[in-house]
């Protein structure tokens, strides 16, 4: 239910409509496939939704930042302290026990409403599951405080104790819905300092999150570079002798571009990161439908194509005979740029496959075959540059046009893979 309300699960009938504080309705999801980014809210998923590479403090900061809030470091530590997490603030989430990780997930889901002056929605999926008695106490106290300050908390739970802290209880049993009201006594709460509210920065936060965890553990970069380097070494061991290719510019071009192309089509580690503890679902809920194009760029091989192509050139240059244009080296970056486009398209296809519940059991490579076309165009372009040098004319048989066509084909594949699933 929670996943439908926040728009990440398709619904078979009806619509999910949010009403803003100004009374404006916003259809977040309907049965016809409409999906829009919801208003800023707090979210705790049943499976935490946190990647193990994140730091504890960083997680809370992100949850606030995507909601348009910004607390200073002291306030962050104070919030963590309330949940007994301040001594772990610089630890990675992977180092926490399941109970501590759950505390962080619940805290991060409630904080966007608790530290905001205007009332907000929060969604908590089985928040008490895995919490010890201390944390359950904090949870109950925070639920009451949120309610007292006019926020709305939608809680899916089997826990009768948590239900007793709710003002409205909706039961779904054997396909029947029943509703009861409940009253909670007034309580005193400590004074809180609210954060100033800005516009939420969901996509930029997602990018900085992705880059931050990749710099902490660069498995994506290494995972893409390794098969590329292996391909280069293999090419060198086969044709790396002097003049082995006898003016076969097309074969030479293919070998030069192959490592970068391989790095572009390898499944990105970012997709695995997003599947960890349903972290991708959390980001998808927060960012709305923009998450797919954003991920396809963030997870694509952007850094590697240019250095890999130049490395290939230096390693394989001696294996071609004939009068290659000496200016080729100045233009190798051009096909490398197009390989970045190819990488975005490949990532979009991997993302499409990752929508499946058992994506590891699906053969994504079958869908990647179409990317052979832009690669062939790039090989054509580079072989023309090798043969006659770079020209700027726009005839169909010019290198520039081949590069443009390769880019357009990649862009078309990317667009189809990105927009069809959310259409």
């Amino acid at each position, binding site marked *: 239910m929670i996943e439908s309300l926040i728009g990440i699960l398709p619904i078979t009938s009806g619509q999910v409509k949010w009403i803003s504080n100004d009374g404006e309705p916003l259809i977040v999801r309907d*049965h016809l496939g409409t999906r829009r980014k919801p208003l800023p809210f707090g979210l705790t998923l049943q499976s935490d939704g946190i990647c193990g590479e994140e730091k504890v403090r960083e997680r809370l900061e992100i949850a606030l930042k995507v909601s348009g809030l910004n607390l200073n470091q002291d306030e962050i530590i104070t919030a963590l302290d309330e949940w007994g997490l301040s001594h772990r603030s610089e630890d990675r989430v992977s180092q926490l026990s399941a109970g501590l990780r759950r505390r962080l997930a619940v805290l991060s889901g409630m904080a966007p409403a608790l530290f905001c002056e205007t009332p907000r929605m929060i969604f908590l999926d089985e928040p008490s599951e895995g919490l010890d008695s201390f944390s359950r106490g904090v949870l109950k106290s925070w639920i009451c405080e949120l309610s007292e300050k006019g926020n709305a908390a939608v809680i899916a739970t089997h826990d009768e104790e948590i239900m007793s802290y709710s003002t409205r209880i909706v039961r779904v049993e054997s396909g029947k819905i029943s509703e009861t009201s409940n009253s909670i006594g007034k309580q005193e709460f400590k004074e809180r300092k609210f954060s100033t509210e800005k516009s939420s920065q969901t996509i930029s936060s997602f990018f900085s999150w992705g880059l931050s965890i990749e710099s902490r553990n660069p498995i994506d970069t290494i995972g893409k570079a390794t098969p590329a380097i292996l391909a280069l070494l293999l090419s060198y061991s086969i044709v790396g002798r002097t003049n082995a290719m006898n003016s076969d510019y097309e074969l030479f071009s293919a070998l030069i571009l192959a490592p970068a192309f391989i790095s572009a089509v390898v499944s990105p580690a970012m997709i695995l990161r997003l599947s960890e503890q349903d972290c991708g679902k959390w980001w998808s809920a927060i960012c709305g439908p923009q998450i797919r194009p954003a991920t396809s760029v963030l997870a694509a091989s952007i850094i590697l194509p240019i250095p890999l192509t130049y490395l290939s050139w230096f390693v394989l240059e001696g294996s071609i005979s004939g009068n290659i244009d000496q200016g080729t080296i100045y233009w190798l970056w051009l096909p490398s740029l197009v390989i970045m486009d190819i990488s975005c398209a490949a990532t979009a296809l991997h993302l499409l*496959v990752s929508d499946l519940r*058992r994506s590891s059991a*699906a*053969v994504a490579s079958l869908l990647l075959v179409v990317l052979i076309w832009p690669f062939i165009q790039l090989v054509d372009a580079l072989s023309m540059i090798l043969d006659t040098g770079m020209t700027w004319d726009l005839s*169909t048989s010019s290198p520039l046009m081949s590069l443009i066509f390769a880019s357009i084909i990649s862009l078309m594949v990317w667009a*189809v893979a990105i927009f069809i*699933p959310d259409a």
Partner: protein
Amino acid sequence: MMYPDLSIKIRNGIIVTSIGIFGIISTALLGVFYAPGVDPIAWNAPEAQRIFYWHVPFAWSSFMAFSMLFIGALSWYRNRSEWGWRWVSTGSDLGLLFGAGVVTSGPIWGSVEWGVPWDWGDLRLNTFALLTGVALFLVLSRRSQPDGQETRDTLAAIGLFGFALVPITAIATTLYQKRHPGIVVVDGEGAGLDPMMRAVLMFGTISFMVLFIGLSMLSDSLLRLEDRVEQAKRRLDEVNQ
């Protein structure tokens, strides 16, 4: 719950499929022993040309299967209709079967006639190869993924993606041909055909169509029965709770 009786449809499906199988075996025999050969001067491998009595009907049948897949995917995507999903399932199964026939018989013929098994400038071969790849993906994924609306949504999206590949492949192939002039053997299959050859080709095409219809009927019945079994299992799950 009362279900319509499928036994007549299954029986008819078996009869139609049997007729289709008989027809395609007859086509092979007619193609080898009855149809006249082609001009040995104009063709590099005149005997290998006889494979086209299966190759062309394979292509037509797979075109029908891919169309079925596309219509089904569109219908599922727009209305979440059960028949739409059954068409996606049947279209992908038959698209894989007949598409594999095209991309197997094509290179066999091409390798002896053109000297190369694959021509990147041949639009039909490349389109069928990509669509067959998508069909294979769908068949494998349908078996490996838990059935549910999310899975069906994603697979229907991939089915539609497959069709979006057709114009992309057309553009890519056209561009490739501009740089690499295509291997031209005849202007088009069936162009200027001898009447006997045309008759065998027509017989083959009709036989493959009959086989396609028979397999579609059987596949549809099978999918309905699978759905009933699944519903019965769910009811048992509820009883056992």
